[in-house]
């Protein structure tokens, strides 16, 4: 739109105060995002709900009499090479994948926001040192380092897996928050707050933080999608969840066997589709949020 003249009074891109309201309006307007959101809520409720009733140990027990059965019959979606029910693994796998992705997103979010806010707001030498540390983490080959740590950590659990992922994933959000904090702290409202006697902590968390909250929400939503992908990717390679805990990636990992890939599609295709749909849905919601918070892109 070629409308930047002073005389055209289009509502300025004012950051609107009630983020929730605008987000909701945008979601309702964006049908795709709304459908995605409903789908996400349903699938989450379903996998967490049904997982309560599923006998987990039964699903992961090897049954040599029912190896590689195609869909239909006793098992809705067939079985894998160990005779384990694909459908059951899909349910538990989705739950596990979601849990880890959410956990990692929250942990990286908290670390990233605090790190970025402190670094950007304090600035100077502190910022300099903190950014150097961050830069170092950023250049590490993420996938390899995580795999190495997964391989060498003793007493490996789902939680330690999440910690390892978090340790090498907090930098993106930290960097974004830091550059935003750098801008925001120079704005007059933050300066004004200091002249009104508010402490640095107050200015940081009570004044600046609310102004970057929408950015945080958007980034964390998009991160959630990415983390679902990363977790399943690592599990696919065999360095994600411990053996006994199925994940969506584990099911896809069976496809590393060319036989499975070529002839037993029922083992890996449902998991692939599920990951895809999950990531697309989360992304849809994330993009809608992004539009909602960026007035320039807001629809209508």
């Amino acid at each position, binding site marked *: *739109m*070629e*409308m930047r*003249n*002073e*005389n*055209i*009074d*289009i509502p300025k891109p004012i950051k609107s105060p009630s983020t929730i309201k605008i987000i909701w309006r945008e979601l309702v307007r964006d049908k795709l995002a709304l459908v995605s959101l409903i789908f996400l809520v349903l699938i989450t409720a379903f996998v967490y709900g049904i997982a309560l009733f599923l006998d987990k140990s039964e699903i992961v027990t090897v049954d040599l009499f029912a190896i590689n059965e195609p869909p239909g019959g006793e098992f809705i979606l067939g079985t894998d090479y160990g005779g384990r029910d694909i459908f059951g693994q899909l349910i538990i796998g989705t739950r596990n994948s979601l849990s880890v992705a959410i956990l990692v997103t929250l942990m990286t979010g908290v670390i990233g926001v605090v790190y970025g806010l402190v670094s950007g707001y304090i600035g100077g030498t502190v910022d300099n040192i903190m950014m150097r540390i961050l830069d170092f983490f950023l250049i590490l080959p993420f996938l390899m380092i995580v795999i190495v740590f997964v391989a060498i950590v003793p007493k490996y659990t789902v939680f330690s897996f999440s910690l390892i992922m978090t340790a090498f994933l907090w930098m993106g959000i930290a960097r974004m928050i830091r550059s935003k904090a750098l801008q925001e702290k120079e704005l007059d409202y933050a300066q004004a707050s200091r002249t009104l006697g508010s402490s640095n902590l107050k200015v940081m968390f009570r004044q600046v933080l609310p102004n970057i909250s929408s950015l945080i929400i958007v980034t964390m939503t998009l991160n959630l999608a990415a983390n679902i992908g990363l977790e399943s990717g690592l599990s696919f390679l065999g360095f994600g969840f411990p053996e006994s805990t199925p994940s969506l990636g584990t099911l896809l990992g069976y496809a590393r066997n060319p036989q499975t890939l070529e002839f037993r599609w029922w083992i890996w295709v449902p998991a692939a589709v599920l990951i895809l749909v999950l990531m697309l849905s989360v992304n849809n919601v994330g993009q809608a949020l992004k539009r909602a918070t960026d007035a320039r892109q807001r629809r*209508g």
Partner: protein
Amino acid sequence: MVLKIRKNKYTYFRGINLSKTLLEIKNLKTSFRINDDYYAAVDDVSLTVNKNEILGIVGESGSGKSALAFSIMGLHNRAKIEGSIDFKGKSIANISTAKMNKLRGKDMAMIFQDPLTALNPLMTVGEQISEIIFLHNKGLSNKKRKGRVIQLINQVGIPRPEHTYEQFPHELSGGMRQRVIIAIAIANQPELLIADEPTTALDVTIQSQILDLIKDLKKDMDAGIILITHDLGVIAEMADRVAVMYAGQIVEIADVHTLFENPLHPYTRSLFNSVPNTNEHQDRLHVIQGIVPSLQNLPRTGCRFATRIPWIDESAHEKNPVLHEVIPGHYVRCTCHSQFYFPDESKEDQKHGVS
């Protein structure tokens, strides 16, 4: 066919009678689309610019003065333009971009408000001035073109032209950048120069230098200049004639001495009284009530300034205000000016009335 001949005849005669006229705008209406409706930012504006004349256009933000400038230059992408704009007797409203490009940068040029954003950050100053010469004279050799660019840099008063030629915009100060913008604008010695708030972003000492430069250029080039600003001081110093714009319309137009000695329209008078004056002492400044309405909320009928002078009786306004020529060359919109008074005066008036 008949119509066409008539039109030609008309322009022919006008060409003889008003040989000094460079630009003639009639009933120009520039509308922007917001959601599904068009809103006129420039509404029924008519004016002329003569050779060797500075026409000042003054108004606050939202008055439509920049949209007017962009309409003349054909720089609006999606605006609807109605009415006529004749440049040297030829219509340039809604002509093709290719035709417009032959005029833009050659016969008419523009100076922009913010010299930093108006320059390409990744091109050297020399390249950017060079481009406008190249576009309108492709035959010129590179060497000659560079010579001309350096001459131009010199002309606008930048020291060390050869050195500046190689510099990037961010390496120059604000004043120097604005000189570069001016060098670009005058590169092909345009006959019409539009300066859109050319000094708003500059310090006052730099402003006076830039204004002096524009005055010199007018003398040298015999050009017609439209000077758009919100600063009455700049107008007083520079303009030959002045048009005051409010809410997309010209509310008053006169030569500069007449306008400053005898402003008539309530808006013009209010504007004069609200600016601190360095020459005389005022205890209090006049405050114009209300705010400039946004484009969507502009009153489209009646006197557009009426809501901001509510103490003036409605009957004082015209139903469809038009420009009235009070004395030759001095036009005022709406009849309300004849009954206008400032509210603080009104109290005294009332007292007088009682006693």
